């Protein structure tokens, strides 16, 4: 079972949902070997009809307490540029395509997605270029994303506040 997970976070991204659920995109997704598509659509107004056939299942929901499970299941994640979604996906070692919402160009979260793209950790596109990218991209070119190191922060903080080190 090969699974593609699309997430738009707490807001809405109708263009993306409309784009991936369009007939042509579904054909591409199927041709790439995926047989399950999960759409997390937030408060969007584009709500594709879920269906299930022998070879392909489309699931749609608005929110879940945690996306952990769906991220874990996914073989590929398509996400909005939200920092939370990007980082959570990369930490799980899942290949990621970030789709930029051109209607929110000044959104500062783009800074992070752009940077992570520059460093080779994810693919980056707009709704109109997504189908083409899905067909042409090579997931094996993505670079491993090392997890952040909060322990460096706690060590720094212990020192500057004068906590006696008990370790």
């Amino acid at each position, binding site marked *: 079972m090969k699974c593609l997970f699309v997430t738009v976070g*707490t807001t809405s991204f109708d263009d993306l949902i409309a784009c991936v659920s369009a007939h042509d995109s579904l054909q591409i997704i199927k041709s790439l070997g995926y047989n399950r598509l999960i759409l997390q659509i937030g408060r969007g107004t584009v709500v594709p009809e879920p269906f299930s056939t022998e070879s392909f299942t489309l699931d749609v929901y608005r929110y879940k307490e945690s996306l952990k499970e769906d991220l874990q299941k996914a073989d590929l994640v398509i996400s909005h540029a*939200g*920092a*939370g979604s990007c*980082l959570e996906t990369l930490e799980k070692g899942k290949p990621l395509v970030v789709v930029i919402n051109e209607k929110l160009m000044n959104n*500062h*979260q783009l*800074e*992070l997605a*752009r*940077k992570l793209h520059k460093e080779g950790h994810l693919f980056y596109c707009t709704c109109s270029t997504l189908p083409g990218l899905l067909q042409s991209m090579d997931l094996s070119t993505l670079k491993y994303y090392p997890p*952040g*190191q*909060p*322990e*460096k*922060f*706690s060590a*720094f*903080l*212990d*020192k*500057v*506040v*004068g*906590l*006696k080190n*008990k370790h």
Partner: protein
Amino acid sequence: MVCFQILAAAIGAVAVVLVLRLWIVLRPQDVRLRESLNLLVVAGSGGHTTEILRLVGSLSSAYSPRHYVIADTDEMSSNKIKSFERDQANRDCNTMYPQYYIHQIPRSREVQQSWFSTVFTTLHSMWVSFPLILQVKPDLVLCNGPGTCIPICISALLLGILGVKKVIIVYVESICRVETLSLSGKILFHLSDHFIVQWPTLKEKYPKSVYLGRIV
């Protein structure tokens, strides 16, 4: 006329004293050794809360009790904090269940609010923040950029200026900020004791900041 001059002189003198006090409060000070400390965390909306909880999760149980401040319109953060603290308690069965509190203050700025009205909403949240800080008297304020952190940090500074308590302010710029500081960051760069950035580009632009690599 003389009245005005005296008034002006008095205001000037108070201003000078306040600036002087601020300078003293922000001067690097000797580190005082301690066993534990009272932590106040400013959690913001959405992404800010997720980030700051990752940092809090790395801290030892010496950072106790923990006080969280959130904007009063932010139910989502409140739930995140509760489930985070539940997880922490489950993970650390040996240590005593750490105490934590959630405080709500009026939001200083909603997304897309005009700058002019922001002045007034910030003053309003100052009005609520200061008594809260005065009551909690934290040793350390930890924040990462939601608008709510401005009135809290100014209140914490006031505590120092008034000589009640020196509060250490640590600001961690969000991982989202690669090239430029957030507005809160630009303000608190000058007013925090330690200012941490997570990308080398920012460290180059702001040499006085601390860069420890990516920490969330």
